[in-house]
Structures are given as C-alpha cells and as structure tokens.
C-alpha cells in the first residue's frame, strides 16, 4: 500500500486548492473530498447565494477530468440527462448521442426544480456507475462524482427529491452563512476578478481513482463495523422513525469513514470518524413519521438521540 502521508497530502492539496476560491468552508470541502474518495455523491442544500454552485465548480476543477453541468429546469426530460439515439440515414442505424451524464464530475444544479421522472434518470448512474438507454448499457467513466444542489425554501415549481434518490447521495451538506470576517474576505477576493477562472487542477482522474482504490484498503476493525451496524439498527428501531438508515447508508458510512481516516493520515478507522460523519451521511436517510414532523421533530434530533444511545466501542 502506498504511504499514507502521500495520500493525505494529495487530499489536503485538493481541499486547499478549492479553498482558494471558496472562503471559510474548509469543513464542507473536506466532506466533499471524503465523498469523492468514498465513491459517493453529494447533495449541497441551503438557501440561495451561499456559494453551492461555486463550491461544486471549484472542487470539480481542482480534481481535473471532464466536467459537465446540467441546469435542472421543469421542462428537462430524462433524455436531456442520459442522451438519446438518433437515426442516421447514411448508415441506416441508430446512433447513440450520450447526454451530459457521461463525464467525471456532474454538477446537477437546482435538482429539485425538475420533475421526478427526470430526477430518476440519474438513479442508475449514481448507484451503479452505468447508463442504460434503449436497452444498451454504457459504463460511465471513473471517477464519476455527482454534485447536486438544491434550495430548500421554495415551494412553487419544485419537486422534492424522493427517498430513493436521496438515499443515493452519500452526503447531504448544509453550508451555512459565512461569518463577518469570512464575508469581508469574500468581498476582497472577488473584488477585481473571479478566482475560479484561474484555478488549476491539482489532481487527475487517474490519481483520484487510485486514491479511491487505496481508500478501500483502510482497515475497518470489527468493532467499528459493529458500531456502524448498531447505529443503523438503532435508527430503524427508533419510535419516531418511519424508515431508518438503509444498508446502503451503512455501507456508505463505512466508506466515508475510511476516506476520512485516510485524509487524517491514518490507515485505520476510529469511532470518532464515524461520529464525525454521522450527520452528513445518515441524517437525510432517516425518514420520520408524519406526526413527528408535524411536531417539529427533525431527523437531526433523532440522529442525536441514536448516537447518544449507541455505546461507542473502546479499545481493550
């Protein structure tokens, strides 16, 4: 296995490079890098104007590879995402024109503005890294990383992501407003030019793929695996929960914990890594009962109770 410090340096370089454009959101960039290394996808959710799209573009540019963007609109059709076959009169055959989903980094901007049918066209690509159109299956280039953004406050003309789609995102991340000092830094940095234009790649798709393979070798002890399974089971058994964390969620948690351990210079997972990632990885997978949501209970509250109730494994 390659030395851990070299991998950690590459991950740090990715975050640092994106941070040249995005001010004060290192934690978010770190989480996005974790998702990238864990072969997952990210949903950035917050109110307008906080830099969701900018952050996605900065990270995409930093990791190199092909980058495509889809602006999700209400009239977008599944074929606009996946691609479509066109009849070629010269050859007498149908020719497949791949859609924007065939790329390394896909920015799905304002994903909740399109209809559920179009949202669902991303399911296979996100879950299985392949695409099936007209009965033909196309393997997507790797790494394949979807960064979706959505605005949670608008009601009219939006279509909330269904649970199946949400579960395919490894993480859902809130950005939050910058502090006063960070806001001043933003004003300074963007006063004369857009720093995104001069941002260069610090990694390549091959290197990212290699890091993803190395991430899989980070040791997850039996105790850590049990801890993840216990959290998932406790979330399903919670009285306020309709649907708890899925096995896909538990698997994603383990991969994300491996990636975080690697980024922190370790070749083994600690329970702290799991606790640290619980909110972005598990919160959106917990579907509460309607009456609990009516009472104002949030998945965050329930996840907090679950984490408090599951004993953290300790070293013998």
């Amino acid at each position: 296995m390659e030395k851990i410090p070299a991998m950690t340096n590459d991950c740090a370089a990715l975050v640092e490079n994106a941070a040249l454009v995005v001010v004060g959101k290192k934690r978010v960039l770190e989480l996005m890098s974790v998702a990238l290394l864990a072969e997952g996808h990210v949903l950035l959710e917050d109110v307008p104007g906080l830099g969701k799209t900018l952050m996605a573009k900065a990270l995409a540019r930093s990791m190199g590879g092909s980058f495509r963007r889809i602006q999700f609109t209400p009239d977008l059709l599944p074929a606009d995402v996946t691609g479509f076959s066109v009849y070629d009169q010269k050859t007498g055959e149908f020719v497949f024109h791949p859609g924007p989903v065939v790329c390394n980094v896909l920015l799905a901007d304002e994903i909740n503005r399109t209809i559920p049918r179009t949202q669902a066209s991303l399911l296979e690509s996100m879950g299985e890294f392949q695409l099936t159109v007209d009965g033909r299956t196309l393997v997507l280039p790797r790494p394949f990383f979807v960064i979706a953004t959505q605005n949670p406050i608008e009601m009219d003309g939006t279509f909330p992501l269904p649970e199946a789609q949400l579960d395919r995102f490894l993480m859902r991340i809130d950005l939050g407003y910058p502090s006063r000092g960070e806001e001043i830094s933003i004003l300074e940095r963007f006063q004369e030019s857009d720093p995104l234009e001069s941002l260069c790649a610090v990694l390549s798709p091959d290197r990212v793929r290699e890091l993803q393979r190395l991430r899989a070798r980070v040791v997850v002890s039996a105790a850590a695996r049990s801890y993840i399974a216990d959290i998932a089971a406790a979330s399903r058994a919670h009285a306020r929960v309709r649907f708890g964390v899925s096995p896909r969620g538990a698997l994603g948690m383990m991969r994300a914990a491996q990636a975080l351990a690697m980024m922190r210079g370790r070749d083994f997972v600690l329970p702290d890594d799991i606790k640290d990632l619980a909110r972005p990885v598990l919160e959106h997978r917990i579907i509460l009962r309607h009456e609990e949501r009516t009472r104002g209970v949030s998945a965050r509250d329930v996840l907090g109770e679950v984490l408090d109730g599951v004993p953290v494994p300790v070293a013998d």
Partner: protein
Amino acid sequence: MREDIGPGAFAGAVSFFSVWPVKLIAGLVLFFALVQTEFALALPAAGALGIGFAADLWARLASSRLSFTLCPDRDRVFPGENVGLVIELYNKKLLPVWLTLELPVPPHFAEEEASGGQGFLHSGLRLLSWEKSRRVLGLRARTRGVARPGPARISAGDLLGLSSRTRSFGTAREIVVFPRRLRLKALSVPFQEYFGSHAARGPVEDPAWYAGTRDYTGTRPAKNIHWKASARLGTLQEKLYEPTLQRKLLFVLDADGWEAGEDPAGVSGNFERMMETLGTLAAALMETGASFGLVTNARLEDSPGGVLPAGRGPEHLGSLLEILARVTGTGGAGLEATLRGAASEYAGFVYCASSPGRRAARVCREISGRKKVFCVFGGADSRDTPVWEGFPACRMEDLCEDPE
C-alpha cells in the same frame, strides 16, 4: 432552563426551632439561667437554641450551590398524549441535602394517575455530596392550548426537617397542545369537489404528460418534436404538454359571531370543534400533497398574526396546528382586509365560520371571484345547507366525527 440556586435566593425558614420568637425566648431563658447559675434550666435552653441555629445553618448551606433544570421532554403534543417534565438537580457541595419539589399541573394538562391526582406533582428526594438526580414527572395533555410548566417550588432543608428554605422557579419553555384530530367522514361527493377540482396552474408545463400535438412552428426546441407523430402524418409535429397542477387551498377561520363559551377566554365548544375540524381537514390535505395556508382573525397568544402562507408537508401542518393551538378568543375583525392581501395565489378557499349570514356572504364574495369557495359552518344556529349563496356548504358535523 438552568438555574443555579444561591443561598440568598430562598425565601424564609419555617419550623418551630428556627422561628425568631422561639430563638429569642430560648436566648433570654439561657441568659437568665446563666446569670442565676441555674444549669438545669440553661442546658435545655442552650440545646433548643443550638438546634435552631444548627438547623438554620444546615438549611442555609443546603440551599447553596444547587443546580436545577426543568425541561419538558417534548413540546408539541396532541390531546391524550403524555409529556414528561424532566427535572434535573445537582448538589455541587459536600453537604447532603433533603429536597421537596412541588410543581403545579399546567393548564391544558392533567397529571398522570401515578402522580397522586392533587393538582400538584410532588417529589421528595435526597442528594448526597456531588450527586446528580433526574426525575421525570408525567403529564397528560387534555385540551388544546399553550402552557408553560411551573412555577416549581423547591424546598431544601436539614435531615430532620427542622428548617427549610423554599424558592419558586418558572421556565421559558412552552408546551403546545394541538387541536384534537378527528376522523374524517366518508364524503358523499369526491374530495376534490369540496376542496378544489380546479387546482392552481403551476408556473410550468409538465413534460411528463402530453395533451396532444400540433404542427411544429420552429419556435420551440427540437426536443419537443414528436417524431412518431411526425412520421405518421408526414409533417413535423410538436408535443403539447399538460400544465403542472398544484392544489393550493387557503383555510379561512372567521372567529366573529361565535357564541360565548364557558371557559375564561370565552371560547365555545363549537368553536373548539371547528378548530379540530379545520386541523383534521388540513391533515387530510397534507396527505394528498396539497399546499395550504391559513388566515384567521381570532385572538392569538404570543403570535404576531393569524396568517400562515402556503406550504406543504407535515412541518407546515405543524405550523398551522400551532396557530390553532394559540387561539385564545373569538370575536376578531378585519378579516376581509387580510384576505385581500393573502388570497390572490390560492385556487380555492375553505371558509370556516359560525353560521351563514350577511357577514359570511360578504367575506365569501370578497374571496370568490374566479376562485372556488367551500363553506363550513359550525355555530349553534348553522343549518344543513348544501348550497348557500351559490357556494357549496356543509356543517362541520358532516365532515368529521369523534375518533374511536
């Protein structure tokens, strides 16, 4: 809420040995006994005085460095559900403490049977050195409303109970009891007939549903071309889409004209029932994915106004139920003016009022126009009128019934 109990915060000491006339008399007896060298008299007087001062000192020390927390374990409940009032105490000193806790049962709640049924929740406990204690006192939500638990009275004293010091506490946390949820009756006509078959047109066309085709004019993107239809007809055809429909309703609760009730706020049983009916209808609409809002002119407790903009989902239903829970009185005015500003975005209205009358007709005409209005009447003098002034109408009894 966290409170640190300081020694000066407690009021008065209550016991035979600690009241000042007893101490004064014992002191005088001791003084004269010593002057007269009557040691047989001096000994009990000194003992009584010593016990009094020791008990006082213990009570004073016992009440110092105590930390107290009072917090409900949930703050949004339906009638019939239980709430636990979690009381945490921490004795941050070496001296053990004997405490008595008294908490009045808040309005809109009843104590659970295990609590004694005396209108107070009692709890006695002992805290050793540096000990923490957590007690949960059970309450059962009884009626709609908003309540703040407290004030709690906590008494700290010595081992024998000769002296104690007491202090009252409140809490900033409030518990909201939503209106009771009723059971929706089977309606004689489809639900949509009552609550808006004319759904609001969304801001976009829905590309999932084709309404038909027409000759392609070249003004829209080529992806709208229907290739199979074009091949069949020999000319380019473009798809025509259905508009996206969103059911969006506004509940209007007119608090004017209701009969006075017997409770202190004057809210009648019929008005309570109307709020339960409205909450039940809103819950049923939420299940269908519809958007809904609320306008009311009722008096509200700790709420800036009775207007809830349109929204959907269980969280939005919670906001609507909370407004209903905060209603403290009827007889408001100015409904038409509020509606003028809020009503334009809605496709339909559910107008809930006491009885059909001139005022109700005026409000309905105000909000109707091209919109659909459905009236629900709940006052004592409401009549069975399927159609009233051209609007579909019914009594609230026809919509909902008590849950089993």
